[in-house]
């Protein structure tokens, strides 16, 4: 595969990096990244991956764009309110970089469809906003031996960790089970600054790009935490938990499972 003149120009700032070069750019163009959740985290992740020339981007989300999303979900515009997020996001990506193939799933990701969904991708980005989905993605990626980036944000804080099969702990090592759906504080509305989602979602895109190019050191075995108010980034070193139910010595979770979604998060019906 050789580059066209317009590709050489479009990706010149990638290619000029010695760590990327022509080789890395070819890997990006051949790369396939699945983004689950086209919201606050998924929006910047999808846009930076598309801009970088990642050849295939999968988007899965059941929601439609709401006016209150636009404060942080920068892949959607005012004219998209009411439209399915995956369609709105696909249009933005295609306008940004028509070379990218965008696959969409407008519906919930469940234990029934997740293994098939992740199968064709090199890397998965968890851009979801609820714990059942985060545990589902973790378990599926561990069982399916798929690299993925977990991230979470709240108020002025964010965190992320990368899982690569055989390297370091999974999300369930850090948190053995999700908080119960009836946990009282779970449904209280919280705020978040849009730029917080931008910071953390962009870091997820960076992890995907590094993984695809095979450069640098992935954020495995370390939970990176970010406090925007104090402007502190901390890398917390964490080891695998030998008793982990999905990646430990004696796994009891051998296929993906659905946890009950808190009633307040049940805003969408499966497609």
């Amino acid at each position, binding site marked *: 595969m050789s580059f066209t003149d317009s590709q050489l120009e479009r990706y010149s700032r990638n290619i000029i990096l010695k760590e990327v070069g022509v080789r890395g750019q070819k890997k990006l163009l051949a790369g396939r990244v699945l983004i689950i*959740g086209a*919201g*606050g*985290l998924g929006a910047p992740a999808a846009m930076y991956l598309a801009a970088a020339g990642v050849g295939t981007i999968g988007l899965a989300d059941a929601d439609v764009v709401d006016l209150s999303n636009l404060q*942080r979900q920068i892949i959607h515009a005012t004219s998209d309110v009411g439209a399915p997020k995956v369609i709105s996001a696909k249009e933005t990506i295609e306008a940004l970089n028509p070379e990218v193939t965008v696959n969409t799933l407008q519906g919930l990701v469940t234990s029934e469809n997740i293994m098939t969904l992740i199968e064709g991708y090199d890397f998965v980005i968890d*851009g*979801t*906003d*609820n*714990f059942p989905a*985060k545990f589902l993605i973790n378990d599926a990626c561990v069982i399916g031996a798929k690299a993925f980036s977990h*991230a*979470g*944000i*709240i*108020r002025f*804080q*964010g*965190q992320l960790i990368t899982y690569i099969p055989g390297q370091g*702990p999974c999300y369930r*090592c*850090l*948190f*053995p089970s999700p*908080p119960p759906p009836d*946990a009282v*504080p*779970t*449904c*209280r*509305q*919280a*705020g*978040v600054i849009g730029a*917080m*989602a931008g910071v953390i979602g962009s870091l997820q895109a960076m992890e995907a790009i590094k993984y695809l190019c095979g450069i640098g050191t992935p954020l495995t075995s370390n*939970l990176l935490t970010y406090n925007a108010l104090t402007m502190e980034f*901390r890398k*917390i*070193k*964490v*080891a695998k*938990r030998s*008793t982990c139910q999905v990646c430990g010595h004696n796994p009891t979770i051998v296929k993906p499972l659905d946890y009950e979604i*808190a009633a*307040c*998060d049940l805003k969408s019906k499966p497609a």
Partner: protein
Amino acid sequence: MELTISGTTKTFPDDLSVTELLEAEQVATPQYVTVSINEELVDQGSFDSRKLASGDKVEFLYFMGGGTRELY
């Protein structure tokens, strides 16, 4: 004894359990927090019995979702 909590070293009484440390540090939802001591994750079930030793490096890991719901 001295413990390093989230990167900051402080003085605590001796013979402190993880549960007592969570109280001393006023962790709002101890039932949902993950604790690591010297980079090792501690099982929730042993928070009462696990004692801290001087020089231990302790980290608290919190659930973070998608930013629009409170959890803790």
